[in-house]
C-alpha cells in the first residue's frame, strides 16, 4: 500500500509528464540554463526531458559508499563494452579510478542532457550537487575506405570517414607535432555539430587563423549537416561561382596543406575536410602529381591547364569560327565541316546547345542512378542518342565531336568544385560567341579574369603567384618542383617559416678512398 507521500509524488510526476508531453520545447528552453544542483526532483526533470527518446536507458547503480547513484545514457550512442568495463564495474563520483574516457561535470541541465545525447553516461549521486558525465561514445561508424572522388594510382588510399575522432587521428598520425592544433567548436542550434579548426601553429598566418575563427563564430545555422554548409557561410565573396575553399577526402592532401600554412576545418558527420585559403591554381593540382615522377607531374599539370581552356572555350570557338570568322579555318577543314553541315537546319549555337544540354542530362542521370543502372545508361547515352541525333540530321558530326571533347576535358579538372564552375561558364562563352564571335568570347573571358583577379580567399588573392606576380613562387603553380628543392614558404600564407624541407640532391659519390680521383677508383674496382 503506497504511503500518501509517495502517491503525492507519483501524481505530481504524472501531471508533470502530461505537462511535459505538451510543452517539451518550452520546458527545454526553461531548463537549458538551469544550474544542476543537488535538488531531489532533478531525476524527474531528466526523465521528463528524455522521456521521448526511446533509446534512453536509466538504471540505478549499486550503492557505493552508501549513496544511490542513477545513470542515464542512450544505448544507440554508447559503447556497451566501455560501459561494462569502465563504469558499471565500480566507479564512484569521487575518484573515477576505472574511467577510460574523459570526464567532466556539466554545469547546467542543458549541458547534462546534451552530454547524454552525444554519447556520455550521466551519473547523478543522491545528495551530491552536480552530476558526472563520462564519455563512452560508441556509435557505429563506417570503416576507412579508399576515396571516391580523388583516386590516385600511387599513394595512400585512406580517406576520411564521417567520424570526427577518426579523421583527427588520421591527421595526427601524419603530423606528429605538438604545434598541430585542433580548436573545438560546436555549430548549429539543433545539430550541435562538433567542428575542429585545425592548423599548425607557426606555419599558419595568425591573422588568417583569427579571421577564420571570427567567421566560424559569427556563423548562425540551425543544423550544420555537412562541411558545405560551413563552406558557403564563411567564404569571402558569397556571390561568386568559383570555389574559394577546397574540400578533400584525402588526409595526405590536408597534411600537405597544413604544412604550407593553410588551415583545415573538420566537421563531425562529413567525410571531407575543408582547406583554406586556396588559390585558383591549387584547384588544378591533383594528389597524383606529388606521388609520381616530377616530369610526369609537370607535364600532366600543364596538360590540365590546356584542358581547362578547352573545357571553357572549345564549343564557343567552334561557333565563332564557323559562323563569324570562316576565313580562319584552313580550307580543307572548312570544306569537310561544310560537307558535314549540309542539311542541318539549326544554327551552330542551337546545335551546340542541344548537344551540351543532352550531355548535362546524361551526366546528371548517371550520378543519380544506382550503380547497376549507371553503366547501361552511358551506353544508351553515348551511342543511341549521339547516333540518332546525327543521323536524323539534327546535329552535325563536328558538333558532337566538339561537345564530347569538351565534356572529357571538363573531367580532367581534378577538383570537382572547379569543374562545376567551368561547366556553367561555358554556356556564357557560347552565348557571347553566338552574338559577337571571337571578340565576344574574349570579352567574356576577360570579364572572368577580372572577376578572378578581384577574388580573395581569406585575404589571399585568388590568382596569387600570377596576378600579384611573384616569380619565386610561380614555379610550383605550373610545374611540380621535385621534393628535394628547397621549399619556399608561400609568402602570403606564412611569413615566419623560412625553408621547409629537402636540400639539393647530388649523385651518390662512387665508393673508394675519400679525396682520391673517383674516376680512377671506379676503374680499379670494376
Amino acid at each position, binding site marked *: 500500500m503506497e504511503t500518501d507521500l509517495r502517491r503525492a509524488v507519483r501524481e505530481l510526476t504524472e501531471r508533470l509528464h502530461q505537462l511535459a508531453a505538451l510543452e517539451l520545447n518550452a520546458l527545454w528552453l526553461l531548463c537549458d540554463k538551469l544550474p544542476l544542483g543537488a535538488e531531489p526532483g532533478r531525476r524527474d526533470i531528466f526523465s521528463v526531458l528524455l522521456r521521448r527518446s526511446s533509446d534512453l536507458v536509466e538504471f540505478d547503480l549499486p550503492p557505493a559508499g552508501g549513496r544511490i547513484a542513477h545513470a542515464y545514457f542512450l544505448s544507440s550512442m554508447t559503447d556497451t563494452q566501455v560501459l561494462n568495463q569502465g563504469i558499471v564495474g565500480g566507479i564512484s563520483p569521487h575518484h573515477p579510478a576505472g574511467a577510460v574516457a574523459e570526464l567532466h561535470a556539466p554545469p547546467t541541465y542543458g549541458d547534462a542532457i546534451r552530454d547524454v545525447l552525444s554519447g556520455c553516461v550521466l551519473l547523478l549521486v543522491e545528495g551530491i550537487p552536480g552530476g558526472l558525465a563520462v564519455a563512452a561514445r560508441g556509435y557505429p561508424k563506417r570503416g576507412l575506405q579508399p576515396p571516391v572522388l580523388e583516386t590516385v594510382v600511387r599513394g595512400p588510399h585512406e580517406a576520411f570517414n564521417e567520424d570526427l575522432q577518426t579523421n583527427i587521428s588520421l591527421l595526427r598520425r601524419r603530423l606528429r607535432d605538438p604545434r598541430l592544433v585542433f580548436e573545438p567548436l560546436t555549430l548549429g542550434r539543433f545539430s550541435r555539430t562538433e567542428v575542429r579548426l585545425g592548423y599548425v601553429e607557426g606555419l599558419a598566418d595568425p591573422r588568417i587563423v583569427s579571421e577564420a575563427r571570427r567567421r566560424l563564430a559569427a556563423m548562425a545555422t540551425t543544423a550544420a549537416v555537412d562541411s558545405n554548409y560551413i563552406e558557403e557561410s564563411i567564404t569571402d565573396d558569397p556571390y561568386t561561382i568559383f570555389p574559394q575553399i577546397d574540400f578533400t577526402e584525402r588526409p595526405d592532401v590536408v597534411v600537405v596543406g597544413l604544412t604550407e600554412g593553410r588551415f583545415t576545418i573538420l566537421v563531425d558527420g562529413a567525410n571531407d575536410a575543408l582547406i583554406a585559403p586556396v588559390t585558383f591554381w591549387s584547384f588544378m593540382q591533383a594528389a597524383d602529381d606529388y606521388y609520381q615522377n616530377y616530369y610526369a607531374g609537370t607535364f600532366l599539370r600543364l596538360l590540365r591547364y590546356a584542358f581547362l581552356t578547352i573545357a571553357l572555350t572549345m564549343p564557343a570557338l567552334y561557333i565563332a569560327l564557323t*559562323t563569324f570568322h*570562316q*576565313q580562319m579555318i584552313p580550307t580543307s577543314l572548312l570544306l*569537310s565541316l561544310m*560537307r*558535314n553541315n*549540309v542539311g*542541318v537546319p539549326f544554327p551552330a549555337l542551337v546545335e551546340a546547345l542541344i548537344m551540351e544540354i543532352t550531355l548535362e542530362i546524361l551526366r546528371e542521370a548517371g550520378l543519380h542512378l544506382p550503380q547497376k543502372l549507371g553503366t547501361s545508361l552511358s551506353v544508351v547515352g553515348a551511342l543511341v542518342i549521339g547516333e540518332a541525333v546525327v543521323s536524323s540530321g539534327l546535329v552535325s558530326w563536328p558538333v558532337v565531336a566538339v561537345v564530347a571533347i569538351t565534356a572529357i576535358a571538363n573531367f580532367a579538372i581534378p577538383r570537382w568544385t572547379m569543374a562545376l564552375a567551368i561547366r556553367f561558364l561555358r554556356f556564357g562563352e557560347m552565348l557571347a560567341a553566338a*552574338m559577337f564571335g571571337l571578340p565576344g568570347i574574349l570579352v567574356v573571358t576577360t570579364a572572368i579574369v577580372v572577376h578572378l583577379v578581384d577574388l580573395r580567399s581569406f585575404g589571399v588573392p585568388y590568382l596569387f603567384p600570377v596576378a600579384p606576380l611573384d616569380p619565386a613562387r610561380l614555379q610550383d603553380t605550373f610545374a611540380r618542383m621535385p621534393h628535394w628543392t628547397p621549399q619556399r614558404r608561400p609568402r602570403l600564407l606564412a611569413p615566419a617559416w623560412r625553408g621547409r624541407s629537402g636540400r639539393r640532391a647530388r649523385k651518390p659519390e662512387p665508393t673508394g678512398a675519400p679525396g682520391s680521383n673517383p674516376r680512377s677508383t671506379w676503374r680499379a674496382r670494376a
Partner: protein
Amino acid sequence: MISARMRRRTAALAVLVLLSLALSGCWDRVELADLDLVSGVAFDAVPNGGFRITASIVLPQNLTGAGGAGGAGGGGGGPAEAVVSATGATIGEAIAALGQGLPGHIFWGHTRVILIGEGLARRGVQPVLDFFLRSPETRLATDLLVVRGEAGPLLQLSPPFRVPGTDVLYEHLRRQREPRAFIYEVAQSIRTASGATLIPEVHVGPPAPGGSPGGGGSGGATAPPTLVFCGTGVLQRGRLTGWLNETQMRGAMWLLGTTRRATVELNSPRGTVTVAVDKVHIHRRAVRLAGGVPAVRIRIAAEGMVGEVDRGKVPLQDPQYLIQLSNILAASIRGEADAALAAARSEDVDFLQFGRLVAADQPALWNPVHSTWRQIFPTLRVVITVLAHVRYVGNLVRLS
C-alpha cells in the same frame, strides 16, 4: 532570408540582361549552310569597259571526303564545283550580279587563285587588286595568274583529280616552277620606280592523247583539255605589256633571285645530260662605278646533281668531265640570264627590279635619276657572275 540589397541587385541584373538581349542579335552571323565558298575566280574584260567574273563555287554536298557517314548521303555524284559568271560595269557591280544567282553569301576568304584574262591584263589589273586588297575577308597571299585569251573558260574545265578544281593550279604554283606573284607583291610593284613585275601564265592546252586521265564522272569520250604553263606575262604599272618564253622566264628568275630549283638540259661533247639544280644562292647588289654611274652586280651560285643521262657514253667517273659539265651548266645559266636581260632591254621594261635595287643600295645615285629611269635602264651596266657545280652523280655512275 535574401537581403534587400541582394534582391535589388538581382532585379537590376535581370533588367540589364533583358535590355542587352534587345541590343543583341547576330548581325555578322553567316551559317555554314548558306556560305558560298569561292575557291577560284577569273576576271575578263568586256568590250564596253566592263568586267566579267567567273567564279567556281564549292558544292559541299558533292565533296568526297572522310567521315560524313551521317546525313550527307555519302557524297560523290555531281561535280564538286559549280561555275557561275556575271558581268558588270565595275567589279562591285559584277560581284553583286554574281551574288543574285547564288543562294547564300559569297565568301572570298578561301579564294586561292585569281585568273586574269589577257584582255583585262592589257587594260590594267588595278581594279581587281583594289578589291582584293581592300576587303578584310580576302587573303593577301593569293596567287595571280594571267591567261592567254579568255580566263573564264579555263575555270569551266575542272580536272577530276583533286577536289576542288583550282587545286591543280594552286599546287603547281606552290612547287614554284614560275615566279609566283602574290597580289600584295604585284600591288607593291605598281608603286615602285621600276614599276614592273612578272606574273605566271597559263592557258588551255590540247587534250591529252589516249584515255581520259583518272576515272571520275567528267567522262565523255574525248579527254578533257589540260592546263599548260609556259612563260610569264610582264606587267608594267599593272598593265600587261608582253610575254616571256620559257628560257627568258627562267633567266628572269635567276636574275631576280627567286629560283629555288631547276632542271637544265646540257649538251656536252660526249652526250646529253640533265642536271637537277637544287641548291641555289643568288646575291644581287647595286654598286657605284667610277664617275658616279650606277651598275648592278649579280652573283649566282648553283649546285646540282646529275639527274639523268639521255644519250651517249658520258664518263661520269671522270672528275675532269664533271668540272667540264659544271662549266657547261654555268654557261647555260648565263645564257638564260642574258636572254632575260635582252628581253628586258628590248621591251624597255624593268621587270628585273634593278631600279629598286639601285634605290636601295645607292640612294645618292638614285635620287637624281629616278624620274628618268626608263631612259637610263637600257644602258645600265649589269655584271653577272655564275658559279655552278655538278657535285653528285646520283647512285649510279655509268650504265652503258
